């Protein structure tokens, strides 16, 4: 079955074609980052307008890349939530119209489930069960994953998400938006040991996170040290985040007794984080899995894939269409997956 994936929950228009026999055949992406940069953050109405303008063209591109016609699509998966209501509706409308025209099932997919399952698109792919660290612009969560739809939240951030901390730090350091890649780049030439920044909640004994204090520490440091210290502050900040994320992952693996860790979401692209987790994996005897680098941030492939898993397990088509801007992962139903 060929599944067309449509992701429009925030500021990336993602389209992909995933075939249950042949794997990922194409994925096309348009990032609105440059458009929103002028405004200093995502403007929801502009995001929605851009999705409706780009999505049909991206579908054409994905089909061309895969050498397929639209008639080959056997099902459609779209991001139903969580996300920006208007942005979600742009993708949902397109999906629903296509579904009626092609007479194929249309399924709404949970954006975070997409992220969570995206490491399964890489080889080697992790077997269930595993511990998942979901670190993106909007989320920082540790989860126990026993199967598709079987998600137990082990801990999450009490305030800012890790990606958000990267973005805000970049802003404080005058590094532009989105901040993750910029801070990471600046950190490459910096001294991570120059400043001792706090490791919030590292030894709290639970699996919760907090990043807003770190942001304040960066602010004070930046004020005190001035622009000359940017690279060292970026490196020290990144080291603090990596310490906390790695420490909590180890704690989660110990607590659950598992030996597989899966990392998903935009911050999962961070090289320092990957290097650290790889090192810990060697030291402590667990295996760590990442999505392909280009599938860490929002994309259509993860939506097509999560949709494909649910559809092959017999999930019913949605019929009309709806969006769920607020939607907890825990509300998802489990599906058997062979």
């Amino acid at each position: 079955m060929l599944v067309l994936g449509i992701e429009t929950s925030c500021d990336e228009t993602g389209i992909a074609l995933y075939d249950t026999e042949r794997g990922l055949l194409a994925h096309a992406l348009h990032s609105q980052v440059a458009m929103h940069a002028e405004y200093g953050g995502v403007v929801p109405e502009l995001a929605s307008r851009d999705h409706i303008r780009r999505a049909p063209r991206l579908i054409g591109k994905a089909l061309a890349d895969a050498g397929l016609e639209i008639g080959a699509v056997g099902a459609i998966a779209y991001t139903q939530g969580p996300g920006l209501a208007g942005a979600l509706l742009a993708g949902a409308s397109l999906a629903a119209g296509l579904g009626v025209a092609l007479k194929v099932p249309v399924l709404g997919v949970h954006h975070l489930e997409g992220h969570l399952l995206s490491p399964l698109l890489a080889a080697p792919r992790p077997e269930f069960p595993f511990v998942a660290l979901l670190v993106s612009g909007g989320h920082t969560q540790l989860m126990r994953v026993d199967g598709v739809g079987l998600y137990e939240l082990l801990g999450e951030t009490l305030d800012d998400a890790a990606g958000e901390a990267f973005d805000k730090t970049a802003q404080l350091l005058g590094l532009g938006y989105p901040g993750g890649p910029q801070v990471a780049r600046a950190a490459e030439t910096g001294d991570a040991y120059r400043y001792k920044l706090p490791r919030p909640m590292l030894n709290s004994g639970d699996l919760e996170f907090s990043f807003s204090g770190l942001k304040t520490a960066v602010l004070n440091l930046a004020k005190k040290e001035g622009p000359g210290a940017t690279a060292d502050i970026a490196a020290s900040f990144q080291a603090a985040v990596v310490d906390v994320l790695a420490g909590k992952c180890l704690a989660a693996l110990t607590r659950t007794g598992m030996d597989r860790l899966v990392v998903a979401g935009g911050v999962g692209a961070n090289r320092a984080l990957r290097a650290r987790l790889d090192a810990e994996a060697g030291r402590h005897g667990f295996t760590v899995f990442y999505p392909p680098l280009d599938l860490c941030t929002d994309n259509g492939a993860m939506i097509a894939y999560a949709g494909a898993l649910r559809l092959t397990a017999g999930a019913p088509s949605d019929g009309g269409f709806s969006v769920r801007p607020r939607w907890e992962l825990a509300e998802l139903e489990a599906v058997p997956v062979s």
Partner: protein
Amino acid sequence: MHLLAFDTSTEWCSAALWMDGRVIDAAVHAGQAHSRLLLPMVSSLLAEAGLTLGELDGIAFGRGPGSFTGVRIACGVAQGLALGASLPLLGVSTLEAMAEEADAEQVVTCLDARMNEIYAAVWRRDPSGWQAETEAMVCPPAVAPLPTASGYVGCGGAFAAYPEILARRYADLLTDIRPGLIPHARSIARLAAPRFRAGMAVPPEAAEPVYVRDKVALTIRERTMGTRPGGNTHGTGMSA
């Protein structure tokens, strides 16, 4: 020629099938439920006519102005249907559709644009069709565009949202006021038919809403310069 038309730009959801001049249509007060109602409405019209999407020659949709989300639902569904069934698309102005719906020769069309503004245009029908005497604009109701003479019919939800202001503004220029009139899909279909024949339709990836309110946020630069949103709009807000 067989055309499908629909509109979700207001609180109403309407759809119509044009079959060589014969029209069947449906409309419901949808509130916020357009996404649930539109496609079933389309399917039941097709079933009633015994047609499939593949037997159509094109799809027309209310391109705006109107509710931002509403015009995107219409545009997105139209794009999806057209991509899947290989059909051309044509967006029709919701204000022109109201003029067409009014069954008059001279019409002032006003839709509520929220944030104390309206979308408005003034229309006159001549042998070649509707001529916009003033282009679609977004403005406070107190400065709504005026016709140059009397004898116009005032149409659209803005006359219900701002009855006093608009009554004062138009004083005795209007012979009749119809606040309940909507950009009905049957009028969109009637306007679209000759345009499809004239080859004015576009492929789905080229179809876009026309929002009219185009300045929806201030850039960092505009904020630091203390700019007020300019151009043809007065809004600073994010939604309509």
